[in-house]
Each structure stands twice: as C-alpha cells, then as structure tokens.
C-alpha cells in the first residue's frame, strides 16, 4: 500500500513509523514541540497543503492534514515548495543542508532545533520509509 503525498494518510503513517522507531525515541526523549510542514505550490503541485505532526518526548501523539496553517498551534513551521519536499523525502536533499541553503525555511526556536539534530535526521529517515505515491506520477 502506498500513501499519497501530501495527505492525512501520509502524515499519519509517518507518525506511526516514528512511534515504532527506537532510534527516534531515544534521540528525542526530551523533545517538546509540534511541527507544521507547509507544502507550497510549484509546477508539479498547484496547491498549498499543511501537515501537522505532533511530537512529544520521543513519540508522535497525533498527526493530521490541516485546512489552514493556523488550524493548530505549532512551535515549529517548515516551508518549502512541493518539489523540495519530494527531494527531502526521496533522500536526494539533506534537510539540514536544505535549510542552510534556504531551500527550506524553518521558523521557531532554532536554538532548540540545534540541540536535537539526530532527532531531525531520524524524522527524515522515517519519511523515506513511508511508501509514497506522488501526485504527478
């Protein structure tokens, strides 16, 4: 089974995989702060989508697609065009490098993020594990 990106099913599957990941749990055991991922339109994806990922103490207690960016409060927001997200999920772009090159924009307490680099890497590793169906495919 594959999950269309971006969708409610896709972010819920990512949440489920994170909850199964011992590596994520150990690296994020003190983490508190939910994320909203903003998928911005580009040539391959004409819409804007918002994915909410709840993250608390090494677990992901909830995840859902949002109708609006402010539907749920979140401590962190990562924004990028659809094509950039696809590269991250495919493993073609390291998200930290992407943020350094300003291809992904991160808003929130950057000091806090800098203290949990491995947790960020584990989230991306789990993204790559989600069987993904791309809208342009």
């Amino acid at each position, binding site marked *: 089974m594959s999950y269309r990106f971006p969708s409610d099913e896709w972010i819920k599957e990512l949440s489920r995989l994170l909850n199964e990941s011992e590596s994520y749990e150990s690296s994020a055991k003190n983490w508190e702060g939910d994320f909203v991922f903003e998928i911005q339109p580009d040539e391959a994806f004409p819409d804007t989508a918002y994915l909410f990922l709840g993250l608390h103490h090494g677990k992901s207690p909830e995840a859902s697609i949002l109708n609006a960016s402010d539907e749920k409060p979140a401590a962190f927001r990562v924004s990028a065009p659809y094509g950039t997200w696809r590269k991250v999920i495919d493993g073609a772009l390291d998200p930290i490098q992407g*943020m350094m090159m300003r291809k992904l924009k991160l808003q929130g307490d950057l000091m806090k993020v800098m203290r949990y680099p491995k947790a960020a890497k584990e989230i991306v590793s789990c993204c790559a594990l989600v069987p993904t169906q791309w809208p342009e495919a």
Partner: protein
Amino acid sequence: MWTFVSPRIVFGEDALDSISTIRGNRALVVSDPGIVKAGLAERVVDRLAAEGFQIHVFSEVEANPEIPTVQRGADIAREFEPDWIVAVGGGSPLDAAKAIWVLYERPDLQPAQINPFIDLGLRNKARLLTIPTTSGTGADVTWAIVLTDPIERRKMGLGNWENTPDLALVDPAMAAAMPRQLTADTGLDALTHAIEGYTSTWHTDMTDGLCAHAAADVFDFLVRAVEDGTDMEARTHLHHAATSAGLGFGNSMASMAHAMGHTLGAMLELPHGRAVSLCLPYTLEFISREAPDRAALLAARIGISSAGGEQGARTLAQAVRHLASQVGNPLSLEDAGISQADFESVLDKMVADAENDTQMITSGRSATSAELRRLFEAVYKGHAIGF
C-alpha cells in the same frame, strides 16, 4: 546544490607580514595567556602597531572557551569598537574570536543563537583575521564555533557561513615552538578533520582533494615534527595540512569521532585533538560495518591499503592507531589515565550529548544510544569494534 566557503589565505614563510595588507584603525586581538607568554601575540601586535592600528588585547580565552568568556570579550569589543578582530592562537582563541565578532555585531543575539539558518548581517562593524599558532585546528578557515556551556558541561557546535574569517595568515613560524605533546595532539586533530571530512556524508568534489592531501601529509610528516621540532619542512607541511583539512571538513562537516570527542573533552578534560583522534579508529570501525566505502577509498587514495570495503576501512583505522602510538598518544581512555570510576560517572551524559551533537548527522552510519554506550566502553578499554 551545495557551496564552498573560504577566507583569503596567505600561507608559507613570512605570511605574517601580510598584516600590512589590511586596512583599518582599531584592532581587538583575541588570544590566550599562553600565546601572550610565548611572545606570539606580541609579533602580531608589533606588526599591527607598525601599520598605525590602535590595539586592545583580550587574552582571557581558556582552553575549550566558555560562553561567559566570549560575552566578556564582546563587551570589550562594544566598548573598544574595533574594525578588525584579530584572532591569534589555537582553536580556542580562534573560535572565541568568531563568537566575539558575531556578538559585537549582533548584540541582540545570545551565543547559542549563532546558527546556520539565519542571516547574521556581519561586516558592518569589523572583519576577522585569523592567525593559527598550532597545526591542527583548521579554525583559521572554518565557520564553525565550538563553545562550552559551563553549567551543563556541554560543548555546543555553533556557527554560520557569514562568520568565516576574511583573511587567514598561515605562517609556519607561528607554530614552530609547539612542544612535543601539543604537536602530536594537534597533528592528530588535523588528521581527524581530514578523515572525517572525507568520509562525511556531506563530502563533495570540492572537499575530497583537500582532505585526502591533508591526511597524506599528516601521515607523512607528523612523526618527524614530533621527534624533531626544528624540522621546518615537516612543520610547514603539517601547518598547511591543518588549514587544508580545515577547508575540507569546514565545508563537509566532521562526524562521529567529533561528536564523541566533544563530550569526552568536556566531561573528562581531555585536549580536543587527543579526544577526537582517540575516538577516530573506533568510529571508523563502527561505520565500516555498514558504510565502508569512503574510508576504504581514502585508504587507497593515500596508499595505505588497496583493499576495498570493510577491510580497507579497518586498515585505515589501524593506521590511525599506529600513528597515534608512534607519537606517544594513548590508544584508549584507560591508557590516557582516566579511572574506571570517573569514566562511569559521566558515561550516561556522554552518550546523551554525543547522540545529539551536531556532528553526528553526517556519519555514514547512525548509532543508537546503546551502540554509543558500547562505543564509549570500547574507547575506554581499547577494544576494536566488531558490531
């Protein structure tokens, strides 16, 4: 898409004389008491004075510079209002100077807020000149800043491309008086930068050659420089290798040996170069179980082993151990004189800190908490990694 950043570099004999090429009026010299005592800071101050600079020397930087120290330095900078920050020393004064510079230009920031995801807007007040006095740190050309939080006893990896120095004067004469142990520790630091820069998952075509060349020169010249400190040919190659490795790993990041070495240094008070190089063979062996190719390729490129795969990577790890042994450095924490009780008292914190050190993200193989614990235990006992 990626990028490569570098200061202008003047290197070789009499490179220090190129101080005459900078234009300005007020220089804040950032250094440490040992550099001042050795007369190295004075060589810089004399040249700056000859160019008409007003000079203030801030020489309070300690080994593993702490946040309050750079905040004091920034206070002095705001009072003195320099148009050049001139860093003279090993990695500690150079890193401290970078942080002082940022905080001078951006008084709204705390040190922990210096990160690569924001625009700092530097160079409105001052520029940064670096003059390394050891052959290892590479901090003369990198944007990385490592500061210690004295309350948490944790080293923090900070920095932003903008805080790359404007000019580096890499003059071997400035490192010629290094004592034997410092030569060994810093040379092995350069080797660790070179090998980790080459094996990092962020390595690029722009960094590979620099790292490989630097690694080869450390293997070729470190023993000579340690055994005969007057051997200026060896010292010159090492001094340049340290800067080459800095350019390499500064643009591709270091890796797991640095993640472990940072906390080893902070918790057990080991010099940075000794700490990271002590971990290096173990992390190479650990990574090689799943991702041996980069280390094996480097081993082949510098003529250590033609074997590919894990065997090549493990041969490189053994070569690092052999070099450390030749220059008299310990091969385990036990050899380094750390008691079992001291080690065990900080093991939990070292595992936690290493796991979330910024350098961990570029490792070819991730380590779980349990694996990191086993790695530290192996480094303590000196047992090769087989898992």
